[in-house]
């Protein structure tokens, strides 16, 4: 049967899904655990929908099957909905509340579901909504949004907090280490708060 812990990170090309998955990979190395991953490169990175699969303790292929992910981390609300079918029964979603409207909505008149409707469709899962854009600004840079989200989900990830923080410090540009560690910690607090309200609900 399935061993390991499977995480799907989704977002929009340019939001830093690759850095986020590298943080998980590096933290696995720190803990001496096997890890497999797969990610989107090439043309799709130009503002398109992107996904990174990370399989902690993974021994086989890098791809997570729909209906089997333990955790989904989404940098955009709409992308959370797009990939929600990857979640296993009882899995968790941590998503940014903010949403970038796809250009197809303007240029091709595609109908965009209302934010409230997206939430409604995600609510039957264990979903935490994180104000990642605001928290990233608070940490010092909107660019740290991805690290905020990693912090938010960190309580659910079976890797030590110190391993994850060490991975962040190692992988972000040297000048941004402080901002990113702050983003990670702020995110972790927000994730913990959200988790509490879940368990009480």
């Amino acid at each position: 049967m399935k061993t390991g812990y499977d995480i799907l990170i989704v977002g929009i090309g340019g939001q830093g899904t690759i850095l986020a998955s590298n943080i998980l990979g590096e933290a696995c190395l720190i803990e001496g655990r096997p890890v497999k991953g797969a990610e989107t490169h090439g043309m799709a990175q130009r503002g398109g929908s992107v996904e990174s699969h990370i399989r902690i303790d993974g021994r086989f292929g890098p791809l997570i099957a729909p209906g089997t992910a333990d955790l989904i981390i989404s940098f955009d609300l709409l992308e959370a909905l797009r990939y929600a079918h990857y979640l296993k029964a009882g899995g968790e979603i941590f998503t940014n509340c903010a949403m970038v409207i796809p250009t197809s909505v303007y240029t091709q008149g595609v109908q965009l579901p209302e934010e409230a409707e997206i939430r409604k469709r995600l609510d039957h899962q264990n979903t935490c909504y994180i104000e990642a854009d605001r928290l990233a600004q608070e940490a010092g840079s909107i660019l740290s949004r991805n690290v905020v989200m990693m912090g938010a989900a960190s309580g659910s990830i079976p890797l030590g907090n110190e391993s994850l923080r060490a991975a962040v410090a190692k992988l972000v540009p040297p000048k941004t280490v402080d901002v990113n560690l702050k983003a990670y910690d702020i995110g972790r607090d927000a994730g913990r708060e959200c988790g509490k309200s879940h368990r009480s609900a």
Partner: protein
Amino acid sequence: MQTRYLLGNEAIAHGCLESSFDVACGYPGTPSSEVIDVLRVQRERTYYVEWSVNEKVALECALAAAWCGVRALCTMKHVGLNVAADPLMTSAYTGVTGGLVILSADDPYAHSSQNEQDSRCYAHFARIPCLDPSSVQEAHDMVKDAFGLSEEFKLPVLFRPTTRICHSKGDVILGDISTTIRKGEFVRDPRQYVVIPAHTRVLHKKLNEKQPAIKKRLIELGYNTCMVRGEKAVIASGIAAAYVQEILPANVSFMKIGAYPIDEEWLKEFVRMHREVLVVEELAPVVEEVVRQVAGSVTVYGKTDGHSPYEGELSAAATARIFNSCGFETAVKFPEQSPAAEVPPRPPILCAGCMHRPVFYAMKKVFRDGIFPSDIGCYTLGLQLGAVDTTICMGASVTVASGIMHSGEERDIVATIGDSTFLHTGIQGLLNAVYNGAKLTLVILDNRITAMTGHQPNPTTGLTAVGVPTPPVSLEAICRACGVSLVETVDPYDLVGLTAAFRDVKERPGVKVIIARQTCVITARRAGLKRGHYQVDQDACTSCGLCIKFGCPAIERVGEKAHINDLCSGCGVCTHICPAAAIHREAGR
């Protein structure tokens, strides 16, 4: 020895560094590009590395280096191997002295490609060994063996990772980087290197005679392995082997194929020990065809009987469906899940401030009834703007334009091609168009970089792969040398000048070239170029929506009015589109 979390292509590059290779040539193409991108940025290099102008050039350069006794690597994507097929086929005859590894990365599901061809077929066609890794670690280890194998049999070796190897990541155990320096020496031997008929007939026979020993050696290397565990068996190759291992029950036999050609006797012995055999592989039924040849009365399941798809990529879940289809149990069950309905698609788009967008805008405006053949690059995304009517392969914009014109089609034809693609295989098409009296316009979208594959330098950039300054090639001079009498260079951010240039060429006969030149907006940002930021005067905005239809991701609708978001790179093109003159540069930014 160390363990690192690496991208497949990074692991492959490291394997090459450990193998003390001497020369690397390649042309960028997803999913292969990062191999040379890693090699070209190493601080201390004991090797030569180049981005070549196309794959044929790259392979000939690498082949010649290997003739001189040094180790050479040549990288490309699968369709690049079509371009390099001419030297490939005969390189098997001439053979090599130093190891030559040809990396051709396949792209099942065509994540970033125009087709789903299988490079293994080329290895079979050329009769050279082919290695097909099933994991990032194996890709790293195999590429090291590939050089030795090439030297042992004096043949090029095809190394064939797929997207899910190249762009997968894993914890990889790495060896030490070798710093051996070799110096090539060309030893004259016309019977080997001058393939006149009298020589090539002999070389062909020699190539054929090498085959049985290659098959035996590949078994010894341990890339083709098997374990017998029951009456049923699964045979899988490349990454499909990893998917099979994830779901394989303990009582089913398993054979993993990682190297070709497969030894038929060895395969036959395994197959005939079973009642039913399922073959799982991506793309072409390469393994399956050999299995069917040796199966006798054993039942074989695979692609040819419809259990496994010819197209697309596999996964553990897809492999489980193939198992179920032919009555094989799986150790893992996957739930049936479908994506949420009515989620607007988010395809990749041209960047905010991309120079291609105004070119397509002006082109469509002037040539309302035009036909727009295009080519391979970021600008293929002009499809979304209705400005791309054909794309087939590298360099085929201008040739397709010629063909459409010579068919008797009377509408205006305006072809678009990027700088790198023009230099790859576009020049010949332009030369041919002029020589044979075509009437068409070619727009060279010159952003001075090979952008789509990750911003590799090319001859227009002014830098080599390793950052050494080199004179940028003059596209104008090339076009004029091809015989084009009207060559006009314009700044695509100047929408007025651009439109005037299109109007001008519309009325003229023959082959016309417009070179639209502006730095790629990503390169410009990385270089620290700041052009400011534009905003919409909300009182002046008439909500006409013309700027929204332009399709720039920096322009959104907020309520009824247009709004410019933080993605704005300051190109200013939208100021020329707004009929109410409501868009202005933001003060102080």
